[in-house]
């Protein structure tokens, strides 16, 4: 495919898909190790009402209010889960399920009632993502990457996902050591003075940030796959956390690129007429990578692994 075709139509969606997948996979490593993978699901659902409320208040779809809205919603959900768990004496899984479906439903209702038709914010996109539409119409070829005028026309979603990824990487680099200690041994972490509760909430906030990034790319239903599949597959490749994180990035990038390509061209190769949803294909590929890892990865049999 030539640059004239690839750059405007496929470069930005692919890039956004890749960056979003990486932004989710990175905190996903810790969520999976903390056995909080479902929190990722909860977060990905509750960012929806957060984003809608942010839009209703500000009237624009811009990075800052969206992320603030999502972070606010994540915080509300964490408080709600704790409150339901304690006041209602309900087990954490049920409290989570209750919270995220309720907030998600509220988000869908809000979205349907509000006048968001003028902007890229509608129920279908929120649920399934709209990667294919994040095209760069100002580009004419590879040369556009150096053309300030064309660069100004990049889809705003790209900026959003870059900010989210920087936030994720910044948080994980700064708090890597306490995160590792508290994920492995919470009592010990508290004994050496690590504020494990605050750190845990911060991790959830960062996951919310990643979920906002992925919201544009794969929508809020499928994003859970991006939180869980790459880290879970990466765990089977190595016994060291540093290497696991690196593998999870590799798998996230692979899922996004292959998923996008297969969605666009796979059906044509098979003789069908239409392309399929990129978001769905990305999640499918990430699941396939996990399946392959489960069958062939070097560390799938571990003496210390939980019995199946």
């Amino acid at each position, binding site marked *: 495919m030539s640059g004239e075709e690839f750059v405007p139509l496929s470069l930005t969606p692919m890039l956004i898909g890749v960056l979003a997948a990486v932004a989710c996979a990175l905190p996903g490593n810790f969520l999976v190790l903390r056995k909080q993978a479902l929190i990722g699901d909860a977060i990905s659902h509750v960012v929806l009402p957060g984003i809608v409320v942010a839009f209703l208040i500000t009237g624009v779809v811009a990075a800052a209010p969206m992320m603030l809205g999502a972070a606010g919603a994540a915080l509300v959900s964490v408080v709600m889960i704790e409150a339901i768990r304690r006041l209602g004496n309900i087990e954490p899984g049920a409290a989570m399920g209750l919270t995220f479906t309720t907030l998600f439903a509220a988000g869908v209702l809000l979205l349907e009632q509000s006048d968001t038709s003028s902007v890229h914010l509608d129920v279908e996109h929120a649920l399934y993502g709209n990667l294919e539409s994040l095209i760069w119409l100002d580009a004419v070829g590879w040369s556009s990457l150096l053309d300030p005028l064309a660069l100004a026309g990049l889809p705003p979603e790209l900026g959003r996902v870059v900010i989210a990824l920087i936030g994720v990487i910044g948080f994980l680099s700064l708090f890597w050591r306490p995160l590792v200690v508290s994920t492995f041994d919470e009592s010990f972490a508290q*004994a050496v003075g690590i504020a494990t509760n605050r750190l845990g909430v911060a991790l959830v906030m960062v996951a919310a940030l990643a979920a906002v990034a992925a919201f544009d790319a794969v929508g809020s239903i499928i994003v859970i796959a991006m939180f869980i599949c790459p880290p879970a597959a990466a765990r089977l490749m190595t016994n060291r956390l540093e290497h696991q994180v690196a593998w999870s990035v590799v798998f996230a990038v692979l899922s996004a690129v292959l998923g996008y390509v297969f969605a666009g061209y796979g059906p044509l190769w098979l003789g069908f007429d239409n392309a399929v949803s990129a978001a769905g294909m990305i999640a499918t590929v990430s699941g396939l990578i996990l399946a392959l890892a489960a069958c062939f990865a070097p560390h799938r049999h*571990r003496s210390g692994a939980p019995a199946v």
Partner: protein
Amino acid sequence: MSLELAANMGAAPKAEIPTESPLAIRGLTVSYGQKPVVFSVDMTVEEGSMTAIIGPNGAGKSTLLKAALGIVSPLAGQALVFGKPLKAARHRIAYVPQRASVDWDFPTRVIDVVLMGLYRELGLLRRIRPQHMEKARACLERVGMTDFADRQIGQLSGGQQQRVFLARALAQEADLYLLDEPFAGVDAATEKAIIDVLKSLRSEGKTVVAVHHDLTTVRSYFDRVFLINTRKVAEGAVDEAFTPDMLNQTYGGRLATGQIDQLELAG
């Protein structure tokens, strides 16, 4: 009357906390839900001693340690570490949690776990330098685990895991060592290795407090005991406090007479 109020009424006057003790606890009450697990407990640990915390399951032994470390917050009471509040003295305590409290499938190596003991020294961003690695290796050597430094922790036996936990505590270079059931589920060789390390710590003037289950080894391992069953039952030198009478009070008559006879107790 609320639990908190009751606990406060039971508390000793605050003035008398001895400031030279490595760990002094006064009027400590901790509850999970409505039921107190530790009720109005006083404890004074002597410097340079080895103290066994003894009591039946659910008697609040681990909770007592956790409250001293600030891991659980008490309803009432306070703890001073070397005469200071915990925040000012955290660097002087090393902690070995129960081995079963962590997921040993965690993707990390033995040496990395030991390096966690240097957390306070390394902080958020300081690089791990050769001298840190050297220190961690020296701690592994002390527990006889040098050859396992690069192993994934899930590949270790229970006893080896416990030694790694002890090595991590040694890396903390503390003056007070709090251990939660360090001998639970370990092999005989490990038990010997651990008690040797603890005794060598004592000979360096360090203080050791361990939750301990095996009544038959109390006499040979420890010099002091702290008997607890939600409330404190007795505290003192093994010869004075580790008596059939006190044990019966602690275990509520659940120990058979024959068992107690075998312990060659004083009194």
